[in-house]
């Protein structure tokens, strides 16, 4: 037991040292509202999270709020950009993410607007919301600290803008185009499945698996993925090929497969606890701060 612990200690320490080597740490994404600077009341945090979740459900736009006690020596713009690049707020392709960031007990705030929202919320509008909705109620330089009220107003105003945009254009087609990649990918998977299945049915499951592995590796190379990605794809391809071969040969011989039960159909659990994560959206540097 002792030896095992010691064996793990060294690599763990190494990892910790390497991780600590980079001074800047992006705050982890723990939810839509990360009030690490304690500006909001608990009930307000919940109310805001609900409002932001509803916004995402209705329009797919992802707004997050982050308050931090300090900027770790960074300028607020570069801090904000590092956060949104790590959190990836907004949907991939639509880029409809927005971050409201406040630091040092709300002394400095920034609205970071995703590419897809820049039309509805250009820099001047972001500045407007900052000056009126936020600073109207919470301006430490002037001695006001009603952050509950300020964030409520800001979220309400921003949400209304997004709802209005969404009502005009529900598919978000005007936002940066979401590619047809998903459709092509699905089609490709079906074709690969059938082809690999035939190969495997004729030449044996193992050959089907090898073909699948080669195909996986090939796809990873076409996409110029990392070494790890190539390895993973090879393994996945192998398993996919074996599976296809088994199913196709089962179908072909019309035999023993019919009574194996493919249980499923029920959801993957997870319920409706809000496991919030970024949708892959990107940002160009638009927004406003003070």
């Amino acid at each position, binding site marked *: 037991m002792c030896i095992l612990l010691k064996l793990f200690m060294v690599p763990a320490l190494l990892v910790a040292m390497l991780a600590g080597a980079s001074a800047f740490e992006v705050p982890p994404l723990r939810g839509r509202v990360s009030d690490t600077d304690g500006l909001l009341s608990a009930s307000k945090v919940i109310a805001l999270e609900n409002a932001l979740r509803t916004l995402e459900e209705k329009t797919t736009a992802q707004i997050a709020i982050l308050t931090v006690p300090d900027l770790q020596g960074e*300028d607020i*713009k*570069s801090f904000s*950009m590092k956060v949104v690049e790590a959190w990836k707020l907004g949907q991939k392709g639509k880029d409809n993410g927005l971050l409201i960031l406040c630091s040092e007990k709300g002394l400095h705030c920034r609205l970071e607007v995703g590419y897809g929202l820049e039309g509805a919320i*250009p*820099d*001047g509008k*972001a*500045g*407007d919301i900052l*000056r009126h909705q936020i600073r109207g109620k919470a301006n430490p330089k002037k001695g006001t600290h009603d952050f509950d009220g300020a964030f409520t107003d800001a979220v309400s105003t921003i949400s209304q803008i997004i709802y209005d945009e969404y009502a005009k254009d529900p598919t978000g087609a005007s936002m940066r185009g979401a590619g047809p990649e998903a459709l092509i990918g699905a089609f490709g998977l079906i074709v690969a499945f059938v082809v690999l299945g035939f190969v495997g049915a*004729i*030449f*044996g499951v193992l*050959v089907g698996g090898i073909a699948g592995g*080669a195909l996986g*590796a*090939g796809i*990873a*190379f*076409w*996409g*110029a993925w990392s070494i790890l990605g190539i390895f993973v794809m090879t393994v996945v391809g192998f398993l996919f090929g074996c599976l296809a071969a088994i199913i196709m040969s089962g179908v072909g011989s019309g035999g023993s497969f019919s009574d194996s039960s493919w249980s499923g159909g029920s959801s993957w659990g997870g319920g409706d606890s809000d496991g919030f994560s970024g949708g892959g959206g990107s*940002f*160009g*540097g*638009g*927004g*406003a*701060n003070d």
Partner: protein
Amino acid sequence: MVEDFKMKPWMWILGVVVLLGLVFGGSYNGLVNKDESVKAAWSEVSNVANRRAELIPQLVDVVQGYAEHESSVFKGVTEARAKATSINVDASSLASSPALQKQFMEAQQALSSSLGRLLAVAENYPNLKANESFLKLQDEVAGSTNRITVARKRAIDDSKDYNQAIRGIPGVIVARLGGFQPKEYYEGKPEDMAPPKITFGKKG
């Protein structure tokens, strides 16, 4: 029938050839994609710089409405803008020339400085400082400057990514065969783009 199947030598060779084809084809595609990314990234830098330049006449207009005698400041901004615009003519040359990138950056930095002085004028004119048009333009200039910073950083990151790819395996072979050259870039200091912080009482 299926049980008698044995891999003949030609099948092995074919398999290896196909695999190599996939690997090198994939690598070539990857390099092409990265090359295009770098060009697109510098194009974006050029575009956002132009957007900033377009805001300036409007800003000068608004400020002049309140502070018409600050002529040295207006002259400074106008000249800096002209200089920056003259360098930022062609996005594709920007992508291929670190010398041009340096010139571009320095011109943009000079423009940021003179913009800082222009905005600082408002410290002495409370009515200007409260003017909604002025505030909106100030936000847009700040946003545009930030966009230039972000776009430049991404262009350089893409260049680094490309350079890494043509050094690794099998990139280094494909690069030599396909004629892919490393991308040189001028990095400069990260803070270079930000306009100087406006301090009280500072005059152009």
